[in-house]
């Protein structure tokens, strides 16, 4: 291998994040305010800077590869990174008061979030199996720690344990699959793997490795039948960690899928399509049916996540750039919706009281009609009713399915969407139709109110003018 100087400027977002991780770590030591205010603002500033750098270095440039072919810079990376960092900013903004009320407000939380972001950034730009894996582990290890952040909570510790064991198992699976792919192609570089896959070299071995890699990806997504960890982790983790874990890492999982199975093994589409169909339909069925009977809102959101992952997989199944861009749009809009939903839980919770049951939402319209309206938008968006961004996400996926002739899959998907409508409506029933004897007004800090309003506004605005975002997702996939 000949040594060449890598183009460091191309990896500016990652370098910036890496440096700032150290800065935040040290700055927090000198912050005596007990509120980690410095760490919070530095983290938000870092993420904002990362968004700017990602846009500047990746957006609208020719696809370029550096670090001996291990790092790729393209528009897709830009979109993924901006979304990841943006969602992290929102969820961290939500979590601040939650953490303070529970005496969890330590700089480490932000540090872990930043490291997780670095991992996700690396994944978004990975062009080598090894880099992909390093990014994934950087993300996963931070998430395990975030789930266990409330060390006095037994349910939190249990969730973290479960997450860690199953996460390690899935990483092992994926690593095994990657080693097979390496064996079949003789290279870790995704571009080289792609050319071998296109030529059909060692097809059996390649497909064998791909199966394990897909299982690993499905684990990270939480697609059925590899979803078992998801409800327990969502429920057990502190809500601020759940909010983080339920949004940005889904984008990263999509990055994993796009880099590994589309960029690398796109020519094996025929092989992984059938498996992805099983994952998609299984997730739709499991997610929607199990969510129907949940009384815990966090658990319900977990199952609803599984069903959304199923829908996202449908976009990937289509196997066309349109389908991938639909999946990307779906992931972004899902991130916006999920962060809002967890944000609502945080808003309604107080010290010593977790508003995690659906019944805790009762009478919200009497308590604060603005929050009720945001809840309305969130739930209808998740259902996929027009006027909200969730509709276009579902429509784009259906469009790509029907364009490739998979009409019956589309019919299955919409039937499950109708089943899914029921449990979202149940939440709205609690919010709007149940009345309390003596409604207690909700007091929320101004900062959180602003974020909630922005979150709801984004859902409505994208629900009326989805054009820009659709266009961005199409450009990212080279359309």
């Amino acid at each position: 291998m000949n040594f060449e100087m890598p183009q460091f400027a191309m990896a500016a977002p990652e370098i910036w994040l890496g440096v700032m991780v150290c800065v935040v770590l040290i700055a927090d030591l000198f912050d005596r305010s007990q509120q980690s205010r410095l760490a919070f603002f530095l983290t938000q500033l870092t993420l904002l800077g990362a968004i700017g750098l990602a846009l500047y270095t990746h957006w609208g440039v020719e696809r370029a590869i550096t670090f001996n072919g291990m790092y790729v810079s393209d528009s897709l990376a830009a979109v993924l990174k901006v979304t990841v960092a943006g969602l992290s900013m929102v969820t961290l903004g939500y979590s601040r008061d939650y953490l303070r009320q529970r005496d969890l407000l330590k700089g480490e939380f932000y540090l872990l979030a930043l490291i997780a972001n670095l991992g996700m950034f690396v994944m978004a730009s990975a062009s080598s199996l090894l880099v992909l894996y390093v990014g994934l582990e950087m993300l996963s290890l931070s998430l395990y720690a975030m789930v266990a952040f409330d060390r006095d909570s037994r349910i939190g510790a249990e969730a973290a344990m479960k997450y860690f064991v199953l996460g390690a198992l899935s990483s092992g699976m994926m690593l095994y699959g990657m080693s097979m792919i390496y064996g079949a192609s003789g290279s870790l570089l995704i571009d080289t793997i792609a050319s071998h896959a296109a030529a059909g070299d060692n097809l059996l071995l390649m497909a064998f490795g791909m199966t394990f890699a897909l299982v690993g990806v499905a684990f990270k997504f939480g697609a059925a039948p590899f979803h078992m960890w998801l409800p327990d982790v969502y429920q057990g983790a502190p809500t601020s960690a759940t909010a983080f874990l339920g949004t940005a890492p889904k984008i990263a999982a999509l990055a994993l899928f796009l880099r590994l199975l589309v960029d690398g093994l796109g020519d094996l589409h025929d092989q992984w399509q059938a498996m992805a169909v099983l994952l998609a339909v299984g997730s739709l069925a499991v997610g929607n049916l199990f969510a129907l009977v949940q009384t815990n809102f966090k658990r319900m959101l977990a199952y609803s996540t599984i069903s959304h992952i199923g829908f996202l997989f449908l976009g990937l199944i289509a196997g066309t750039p349109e389908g991938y861009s639909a999946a990307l749009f779906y992931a972004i809009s899902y991130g916006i919706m999920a962060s809002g939903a967890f944000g609502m839980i945080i808003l309604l919770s107080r010290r010593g009281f977790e508003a995690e049951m659906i019944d805790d939402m009762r009478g919200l319209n009497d308590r604060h009609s603005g929050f009720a309206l945001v809840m309305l938008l969130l739930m209808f968006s998740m259902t996929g009713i027009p006027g909200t961004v969730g509709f276009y996400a579902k429509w784009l996926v259906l469009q790509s399915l029907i364009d490739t002739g998979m009409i019956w899959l589309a019919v299955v998907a919409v039937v499950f969407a109708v089943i899914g409508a029921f449990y979202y409506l149940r939440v709205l029933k609690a919010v709007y139709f149940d009345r309390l004897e003596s409604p207690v007004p909700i007091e929320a800090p101004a900062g959180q109110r602003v974020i909630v309003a922005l979150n709801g506004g984004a859902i409505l605005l994208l629900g009326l003018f989805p054009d820009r975002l659709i266009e961005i997702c199409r450009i990212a996939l080279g359309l």
Partner: protein
Amino acid sequence: MLSLLIWLPILGGAVVLWTGRDNADRARWSALAVAGLTLILGLVLWFGFETGVAGMQFVERAPWIESFGIEYYLGVDGISMPLVVLTAFSTLLVVIAAWEVVRYKPAQYLAAFLIMEGIMIGVFSALDALLFYVFFEAMLIPMFLIIGIWGGPNRIYATLKFFLYTFLGSVMMLVALIYLRGQAGSFAIEDFYGLGLPFAAQVLIFLAFLAAFAVKVPMFPVHTWLPDAHVEAPTGGSVILAAITLKIGGYGFLRFSLPIAPEASMALDWLLIGLSLIAVVYIGLVAMVQEDLKKLIAYSSIAHMGFVTLAFFLIFRIVAGEGTRDGALLALEGGLVQMISHGFVSAAMFLCVGVLYDRMHTRRIADYGGGANRMPVFAGLFVFFAMANAGLPGTSGFVGEFMVILASFQAGFWYAAIAGLTLILGAAYSLWMIKRVVYGQVRNTQVDELRDINARERLLLGSLVGVVLFFGVYPAPLINVMAPSLEALLGIVMPAL
């Protein structure tokens, strides 16, 4: 112009929501202003509408989702124009009817109806299929809240049933629309016409549209959500449901099912005719035995709408029997007139029930009796609307029914005979209800204390009397507006003649 009609009430609704948060009077007056202004705009549109032109008027086109060639494409023709005005008119009635009656969160109530109004006008004027679908589905949101928040004791069951029924129907339509885009290359509805699709595909498309529109109309056997929704909905909700949302189903048949899948419509017309006849006869009989006032009117709505769908799908048999399009045109006109007329009459009936309910807080027919002695003015109006519902000549209800029955003779004697039953059954349940509610002895102390309707209620019902009488005596303006468009529609459905 059309955009204004759509977005004025929607944004107005947001303003009402905002300004009327803690001042109910301000909410009422601003809602009245918005609804009034919208109706004025609607009337301006109506009088600016050029009769004798079949195509779309007041067309607006702007790119909306460019990567898929989806446009913000609006326009009205003779089919949708009357429905737009009907929507604006009904919403104004609802706002006035809610004046002092709705006490729980009046700003949200009025805002929901105004937003609903904008969305419904959007449904009628959208010419891009995806835009249509967006409005069509978005309509569920305000109605879901209206029934669920301000409804009766069993409102949650009713509103969930309403939502899930209609949602299941409409997602099937979405699949069909996306498929059609794949064939036509764009989402513009006019591009869907005359595609010459294979018969099997047409049948599936037809069934998908049927799933959406049959639930909306509603046709037997998917009608069961309607009585529940009507009974539990507040008065305004019932009015809008009966006057407009049911019409959207009928409108959908005209705009989508018939012209997009003409061969499938022709091959499957026995199904639609059969279901419509069941609705006319069986549901008419069901209506007769209801003990709940609102349920009775709800079933009567289903029967009347069955008559409308009968008219729409009888056209193939009429043409086969007669050989020209004249009879078919008469049937379509009759069906559409019947839709408009039913919009006014059913709105009036539900407002009448609302008047009674506000005073007695019961909908059971048995609790009333002898109301005429205490509320003579109201009783007179109620009797008038019941007669219009039964299709008394001189009221708008008669015009449509007569046209359809006349046309159906061309299809065959028995169609006409069974369709004619609707007049008899309609008269039977309407008159029997009137007898039990307003005539007879006063048997109840509550009835004894009833006060007659006040000026606001007089204004409401009086304006409806005017409209019903006007179109009953002189339906020509209505028919002149719709005839060219319907003729063009027939040309698409049956190009061979």
